[in-house]
């Protein structure tokens, strides 16, 4: 089997599987700092591959990857599908809307079914926190969490870190991690698994994270997780190096959380004027999909020198390729990654 040269940072990690001793990727919360760094470094090779005219590698040839999405998704599903296909795997997408889940089959039964089909990796998105862990406990192959309820979305946290690291390096700020950076995450923190994964990931890499939302959309206890809590967006932006905007997750809201979109934009919309409170070269991020004119104005989202929103999407494929590669190394019998099961 062919393999691209591994990254030049090999000395930074323990050898072989000790660099990433997890069967599954369920959350950033389960990862050590050096494991996050390892995945980011592994993804660099796939960034290079993805920028070539021929974007293909047969690393995972013969392996079956099932994308089991119990919640609607366009971009994450597409990103995982492209990642698997570029690595040569057979990728199958299972849409819950068209599956027996609608016929009353339990999640456990679905997991057992997928397991019986001998998937080599299962990527899961589910509306309930902890659902991917539940499935992982019932199957024999690696499970990747593509978002579970309001819990975690680890590949989003990783890809955001990779996009930010790249943008900083291109600017000549070749810091190894994010120590000293002030990063604002603003929006519907309460309902956001992206906020949780990013908080954990960015903090692990040394950043100071400010969370900003109206009280109704700010979960209790985030200060105990090390975040700085703001309700005033302008105060949060003051001197910030990075601004990450989140959308309002209206599909998860039961009851009224904001007075109106117009009023929300008045208080929390990222406008060019408001962005001026941040550092003059502050970067703008958004995990998508964006609601232009609500949490972010088009003129900000499309700033060529400041917005790295499309780069986030690009890095998503590379990160997911890295995760699929690393998590299947044992099954593929890669030297140093344990016996083939």
């Amino acid at each position, binding site marked *: 089997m062919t393999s691209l040269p591994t990254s030049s940072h090999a000395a930074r990690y323990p050898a072989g599987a000790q660099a990433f001793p997890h069967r599954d990727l369920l959350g950033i*919360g389960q990862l050590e700092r050096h494991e996050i760094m390892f995945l980011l470094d592994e993804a660099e090779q796939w960034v290079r591959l993805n920028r070539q005219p021929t974007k293909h590698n047969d690393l995972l040839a013969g392996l079956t990857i099932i994308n089991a999405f119990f919640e609607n998704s366009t971009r994450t599903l597409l990103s995982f599908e492209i990642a698997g296909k570029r690595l040569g795997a057979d990728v199958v997408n299972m849409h819950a809307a068209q599956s027996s889940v609608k016929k009353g089959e*339990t*999640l*456990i039964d679905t997991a057992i079914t997928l397991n019986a089909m001998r998937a080599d990796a299962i990527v899961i998105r*589910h509306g*309930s*926190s*902890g*659902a991917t*862990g*539940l499935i992982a406990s019932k199957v024999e192959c690696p499970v990747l969490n593509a978002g*579970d*309820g*309001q*819990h*975690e979305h680890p590949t989003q946290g990783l890809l955001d870190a990779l996009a930010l690291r790249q943008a900083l390096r291109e600017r000549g700020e070749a810091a190894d991690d994010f120590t000293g950076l002030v990063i604002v995450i603003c929006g519907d923190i309460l309902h956001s*698994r992206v906020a*949780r994964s990013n908080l954990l990931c960015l903090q692990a890499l040394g950043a100071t994270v400010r969370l900003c939302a109206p009280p109704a959309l700010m*979960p*209790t*206890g*985030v200060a*105990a*997780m090390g975040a700085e809590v703001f309700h005033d967006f302008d105060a949060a932006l003051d001197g910030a190096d990075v601004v990450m905007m989140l959308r309002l997750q209206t599909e998860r809201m*039961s*009851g009224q959380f904001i007075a109106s979109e117009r009023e929300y934009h008045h208080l929390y919309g990222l406008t060019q004027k408001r962005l001026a409170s941040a550092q003059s070269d502050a970067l703008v991020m958004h995990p998508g999909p964006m609601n232009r004119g609500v949490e972010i104005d088009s003129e900000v989202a499309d700033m060529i020198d400041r917005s790295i929103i499309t780069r986030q999407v690009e890095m998503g494929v590379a990160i997911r390729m890295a995760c699929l590669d690393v998590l299947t190394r044992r099954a593929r019998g890669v030297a140093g990654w344990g016996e083939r099961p």
Partner: protein
Amino acid sequence: MKQQRPLTITNGRLVAADGLREGAIRLVDGRIDALGDVTPQDGDDVHDAKGQLIAPGLVDLGVFAIDKPAFRFGGITRAALMPDQSPLLDLPSRVSYIAKSGKPDLWVHPLAAATRGLEGEQIAEIALMRQAGARGIATGRRWIADTGVMLRLLQYAAMLDLTVIAHAEDAALVGDAVATAGEIATRIGLPAAPAEAESLALARDIALAELAGARIHFRQVTTRAGLELIRQAKGRGLPVTAGVTPAHFMLSDLATVDFRTFARISPPLRCEDDRQAVREAIADGTVDVVSSGHDPRGPEDKRLPFADAEPGMAGAETLLAMVLTLVRDNLLDMSRAFDLVAGKPARLLGLEAGALIAGHDADIALVDPEKPWIIQSLRMEATAGNTPFDGQPTQGRVIALFKGGVRLTD
């Protein structure tokens, strides 16, 4: 299964209201005839307690299922059944059927649904259900949101001399929450409601009960703020009582970090400070009753993502052992422990049971309070093993159980 011959249980330690004392107890015609320094009479059956505790059978105030093997294991001889059944206990005919269902070896005391369909809107036929055997009125797992309905219910209950057993969680504030708001719930991303949902509900219902002159028992009070409201109400001399289940003095929300659905209960597990507050309130007498909340749930209800699982725990088998941990921690003595699980709940239900008193029903548990055992979910007597204490070593087992003077055997 009536008691045929008098039975004297000798050589035990009697759990009396004023403490432990060595002695014997004589049971005649299903009732306690005498206790203390008594000797078997000619023709008596004799049972040697071999130094174990002679205690009242447990009276479990507020179970969700009748589960005889689990109750027998746990020393429970009477159980007050919550109205949240299928079908609901909101009609006299259903209450009447349930009132007879467990006899002779288990007496089930139905709690009448406070409102039709437990919807919290129309008061149910409580007087007729009382006549059919209901021993109390319960709002079920839900709070009655309509303040006017709750006031009229309490006024009616006061007239009928029945205790209202209430669930104290402000429903609008709780919404679809399955956890208590705080760092743990935020970390694992569970829909959460502030713990104050409990004290808000308690404050309203205590005020309404005072207005109506009614007796009210809160089946579970689980927060420091809520327990302080109970303490104040009692200080004013109001007939307000409070209960709790062992989950809330044994566990905090830390038990939910790995999404274990056996720790999904209602009200949800609270923070560590609230757990400590429950222990303090048991010690100082603010908490009157500890019940099992027995609610066995099979995999179809529990092998699900946390928020999708049904709440509830199978608690009958572990109730006594968990209360005995409080005795070992010197929070209370043995007499008080049995008052929490037998004496007080019997008095709230108006039963002549739950204490070793001549003339009371001869419901007796022989207990080895030190006997070690390990709680194992897969080996429980209950119809389902959904215990949050799985794998935990504990102490205290019922060695023999007598209902109406008759020994219950497996």
